[in-house]
């Protein structure tokens, strides 16, 4: 069982990271970003190309990959999202779907559909109490934790508060001097970096394919929901819970229904706590 929990935590931390990226964009721009995972997929492939093709060291390639992730997100935000942000939500959602299609198509055109292996310095494993733990697993979980703590601190800063303000109302904060440009750019840049981390971790622990994004995206959304969309801690815990729940469901009930069971669990959680596990209660409206 511990073995299942450990690998559940590993997958869960990828879900968590994706959920954090989603929540970040949502908190600032109020956009459910269907392209979030692809924004990490492309830089992850670039990183692979740098390591495998250009023979760069992992330690050099990954920072470059992160920069590419940031740049890509910023460009997408500026060119595709911001011009239509004033319109209704449906337009922005559809735009993120379009961006998803475009990036995925580019990845397929450039790299094809074959799975790729990212060579990371964290190969190998050790044994504790009869359980085999891969270093890769520790790296994933630690990275998730670090990003979560970083974001919690970030949201306490004035810029973090401005982000939440803009998410709620796109006009009033501007009257107070909040720059939407800065807020949007920062949040997308951060989210792009986080998504890149998620895809890289997943890619190097398993394999990198052009399909990795879509699977992770759904899990990220589910994790964010489970945790209560507005909460950073919630998104993180939601991801871990989802990963572990899936694996345990696979172990004890049936591997063919593990996602179904995890989803059922979510429906149940939401029926009891409509704001997710960590969601704040709706404030008065009347």
């Amino acid at each position, binding site marked *: 069982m511990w073995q299942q929990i450990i690998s559940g935590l590993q997958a869960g931390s990828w879900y968590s990271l994706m959920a954090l990226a989603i929540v970040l964009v949502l908190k600032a721009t109020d956009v459910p970003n269907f392209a979030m995972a692809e924004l990490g997929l492309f830089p992850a492939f670039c990183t692979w190309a740098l390591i495998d093709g250009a023979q760069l060291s992992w330690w050099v390639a990954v920072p470059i990959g992160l920069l590419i992730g940031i740049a890509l997100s910023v460009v997408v935000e500026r060119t595709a999202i911001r011009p239509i942000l004033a319109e209704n939500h449906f337009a922005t959602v559809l735009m993120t779907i379009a961006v998803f299609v475009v990036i995925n198509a580019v990845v397929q055109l450039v790299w094809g559909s074959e799975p790729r292996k990212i060579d990371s310095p964290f190969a190998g494993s050790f044994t504790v109490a009869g359980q085999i733990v891969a270093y890769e697993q520790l790296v994933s979980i630690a990275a998730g934790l670090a990003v979560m703590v970083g974001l919690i601190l970030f949201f306490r800063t004035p810029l973090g508060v401005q982000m939440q303000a803009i998410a709620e109302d796109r006009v009033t904060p*501007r009257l107070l001097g909040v720059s939407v440009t800065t807020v949007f750019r920062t949040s997308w840049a951060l989210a792009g970096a986080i998504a890149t981390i998620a895809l890289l971790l997943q890619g190097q622990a398993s394999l990198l394919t052009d399909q990795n994004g879509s699977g992770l995206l759904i899990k990220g959304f589910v994790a964010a929901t489970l945790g209560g969309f507005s909460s950073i801690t919630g998104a993180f815990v939601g991801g871990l819970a989802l990963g572990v729940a899936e694996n345990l469901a696979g172990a004890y009930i049936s591997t063919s229904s593990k996602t179904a069971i995890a989803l059922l669990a979510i429906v149940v959680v939401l029926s009891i706590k409509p704001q997710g596990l960590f969601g704040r209660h709706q404030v*008065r409206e009347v």
Partner: protein
Amino acid sequence: MLLSIRELTSGYGRIPVLRGVDLDVAEGEIVALLGVNGAGKSTTLRAVSGVLPTWSGTVSFDGTTLGRRTPEARARLGLGHVPEGRGILSSLTVRQNLRLGATARGRGARDVAQDEERLLEVFDALRDKLGAPAGSLSGGQQQMLAVARALIGRPRLVMVDEMSFGLAPILVTQLLGLVARLRAESGTAFLLVEQHSAVLDIADRAYVLSGGAVHTSGPAHELAQSENLVRAYLG
């Protein structure tokens, strides 16, 4: 002139609302903007703060022509706007709302804390609620928060859209007193859209807007004498 509006036209989508508004606010002046519903008062403020585009005409603030500057750029120049409907960010706490107001001028944390303290002396009802989500405040409390939030940024001109909206008489008196005091202490100018007659007690001058253009203007005490005007526009 701190704010000077010339021949301003603007509107929503394709629908024109302002048809050439001329209006001035001098440094340290309190100006009242009156008019029936739909006269275009809120629209004027929105065009000045940049929420609505200027179709034609000019708006200049402290000698700078505002043109197509963004609302946040205008706010940084020292132009405050408490919008109609208050614009309280209900998911943030009362304190976060308040401090957000300090964004515009980028002032030091100590200054902001001092100002916060001073404002809380006036808006005492907010003190207990600083940590609460702003959405849980009563209507009047939200109004106080909106005004306080604009003032904490120490703007040079504050435009307030219906400050007395939903406030108990005692608070209206207090707030108008505060406006007069702030002007006296720090030379802040005010452009007040009001329905409440007491506004003419503290205003230097007043404009009456009608059908998207200025209908009458003059010193506030003179307009206050006009029985008809007060009956028509003020409660």
